[in-house]
């Protein structure tokens, strides 16, 4: 395949960025998108140019580190995959492919296609856990959990924290990410004792960090590589309203 790449280049957080066009020939359709970028970088280094910086690590769709906005969609044109599992067979010979970083105020660009997502860590630090110290646990089977609840909890827990939901949202809302964690614990008996405090604190931090509100377009669900359901947002809203009512 022969391709034209239009890639966002930005020196650092403070500099102004711009698109730069690169031509790439002879790409195998079985190549992954990131392997295609590896090939581009190899050629740039050989020409004494600076390689394109992008985040990636596991390359099997689970670490959540890759974060490319490809042809106007987080993680590109294939459904329910991360960019590292997107393969070039999803494109056509002669295509022009536009590659940008996540665009959201709480995710500032570090360099080129790499952004800072520590905002997600800060939300989790507010309450994305069950407060139990090591060694303080009871026998595992003393907590019986109905299979449907465990399955729903697992559906929510599958979130990889990549930030595609924020990048997809016109408001840069983090509701899908936050609600997935709130739901995981809200659905389990272990999570109930702290449920109110958890949702209040996590939502407050989400707002404080500058993430936008949800206006129910569900772009987040459509673009989520793990297909996290928007029903988690409804569950979080319910948890939040109940918590707020009993809090005040």
């Amino acid at each position, binding site marked *: 395949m022969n391709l034209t790449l239009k890639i966002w280049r930005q020196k650092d957080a403070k500099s102004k960025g711009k698109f730069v066009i690169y031509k790439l020939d002879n790409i195998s359709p*079985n*190549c*992954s998108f*990131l*392997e295609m970028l*590896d*090939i581009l970088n*190899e050629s740039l*280094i*050989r020409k004494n140019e*600076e*390689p394109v*910086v992008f*985040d990636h*690590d*596991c*390359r*099997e*769709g*689970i*670490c*959540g*580190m890759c974060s490319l906005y490809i042809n106007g969609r987080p993680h590109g044109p*294939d459904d*329910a995959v991360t960019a590292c*599992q997107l*393969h070039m067979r999803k494109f056509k010979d002669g295509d022009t492919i536009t590659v940008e970083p996540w665009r959201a105020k709480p995710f500032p660009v570090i*360099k080129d296609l*790499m952004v800072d*997502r*520590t905002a*997600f*860590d800060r939300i*989790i*630090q*507010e309450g994305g*856990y*069950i*407060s*139990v110290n*090591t*060694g*303080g*646990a009871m*026998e*595992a*089977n003393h*907590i*019986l*959990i*109905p*299979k449907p609840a*465990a399955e729903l*909890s*697992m559906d929510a*827990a*599958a979130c990889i*924290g990549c930030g595609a939901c924020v990048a997809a949202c016109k408001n840069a809302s983090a509701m899908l990410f936050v609600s997935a964690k709130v739901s995981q614990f809200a659905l389990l008996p*272990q*999570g109930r004792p702290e449920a109110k405090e958890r949702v209040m604190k996590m939502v407050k931090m989400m707002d404080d960090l500058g993430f936008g509100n949800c206006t129910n377009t569900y772009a987040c669900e459509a673009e989520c590589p793990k297909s996290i359901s928007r029903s988690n947002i409804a569950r979080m809203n319910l948890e939040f309203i109940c918590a707020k009512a009993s809090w005040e």
Partner: protein
Amino acid sequence: MAELNSKIPKGPVAQKWSNYKAHQNLVNPSNKRKLDIIVVGTGLAGASAAASFGELGFNVKIFCYQDSPRRAHSIAAQGGINAAKNYPNDGDSVYRLFYDTLKGGDYRAREANVHRLAEVSNAIIDQCVAQGVPFAREYGGSLENRSFGGAQVSRTFFARGQTGQQLLLGAYSALSRQIKLGMVKMYNRHEMMDLVMVDGKARGIIARNLITGKLERYFGHAVILATGGYGNVFYLSTNAMGSNTSAIWQAMKHGAYFANPCFTQIHPTCIPVHGDYQSKLTLMSESLRNDGRIWVPKKKEDAEKNRQGQLKANDIPEEDRDYFLERRYPAFGNLVPRDVASRAAKERCDAGFGVGPTGLAVFLDFKESIGRLGKHVIEERYGNLFQMYEKIVDENPYENPMMIYPAVHYTMGGLWVDYELQSTITGLFVAGEANFSDHGANRLGASALMQGLADGYFVLPYTVQNYLSAEIKTPRIPVDSKAFADAEKKVQDRLEKLMAIQGTNTVDHFHKELGKIMWEHVGMGRTKEGLTKGIALIRDLRKKFWSDVRIPGKIEELNVELEKANRVADFLELGELLALDALERNESCGGHFREEYQTPEGECLRDDQDYKYVAAWEYVKEGEFRLHKEPLVYEETEVKARNYK
């Protein structure tokens, strides 16, 4: 030269850990506040250790090279975690888990360590459930189990095909709680560059801030390395792209011994290699072997036609299929341990029965289990794995058998540690895959997660405390002292040396070349000739690297190529040691298979007379290592030839 004292406590194996805990020294709460602990790596072992230390009241600094601690490669573990709960009432016990793990490791692990691992396994499950890890459940609400290789009981707990992810997120959440409480300070996008030694003890690290490129100095009364395995020395592996050996390799240069480097695990069920541009190999969980049957065509001409694309798997009749694992190992069938399954697949492919375009693949077939259980059951059990396979290979595994081939997955070797997980450097502890401790020559499936969390939650909080009890009077050493300045200078010199080369080839070029040498000469089937040749080739490549690598950019900025070059430089040294260890070990055991030492049936031929020891290598200078031996003593178990027939 450090002494190899394994410090195994006295008493019967089942009481050693209790005895240790009963007699160890503790640190009182007011003194804990005065003590700093550095943890490098945020995978299962590192995150769980850091969280536990924070809960106890120590000051913790934790480092990872990724953008968030939640990205560590433990996250990619799929199948499950073992524990001796015996919920299915199928005959499991702590002893049975201990025995299976020891036998699975081909009697090259320490009894005392393995027994402790089995002992604490149940508490790990309790801990994870309390944290809200959504394990699979039965309809009655209790926990569900499944089988894994090397065991005849169902003792594996799982969260779909994402068990590692869920356990890591559990540890990450515990870590996040301690970060919020101010007990742990998190340093993401920081890479450890060197260890700082003061008066013969590990007292800190030099880290590079990967965003600014600046070197930074950190002090700790103790340092814990939980930096994972070194599988990426093969370039293509199931490891993450950033997984590296640099932290443990730098520690080795300060006097930590490297144990059993040649014990590397090749996982039988990975998606086969397809092209030169390929950057990594994707694992298909071992759990698939519960319901999938592995086969190749019985007739060579059928295999040949399949390779040419003229004969599809589904068109090969049942009587012309060779279910070679079931044929060779009727007792364990498709659930033999990984090393055995991998070698059997290689044997068939080498003999001309391999399938797929390259001939380096075998089938993993779900037709029978879909017929027996229905597609929906298979989908519920392995849905995400089937989806992943289809995305990568572009073929529907519900309709056509998967094609799989062995790939480098895990490294049993690592820094030598004693019973307390302390290396030969005082104050330097090593946990998880980075140490050599529990898996001998081969690791059983679902045991890596168990070991990572055992080390972090239940071993280090005791043993590091025992060490620190003697450090309560040691004041924090200022990082502007000479030891820190010297260590930083050394790192700076090395980075400048790398940047000054300005050769013609990229870092990836050298890494791929190294990978080819390793796979060809130090891979699944090793010989004296091949290893000797491999060592010469690695030396040659290392020389070329140091004169011809090209790294663009500057040191004091975000520079991905420089990060990679620094790691590959260490892999180029480690590769040689790995081959040397394989050459020195004149036997076959577990993941180490020397073609000269096999039974007439092609099984491993161990030499317990001469090689029942841990090979612990001391770094002398580049390309020169000194061997020390820790004899392995088996008091509880009888050392037998492994038999899965």
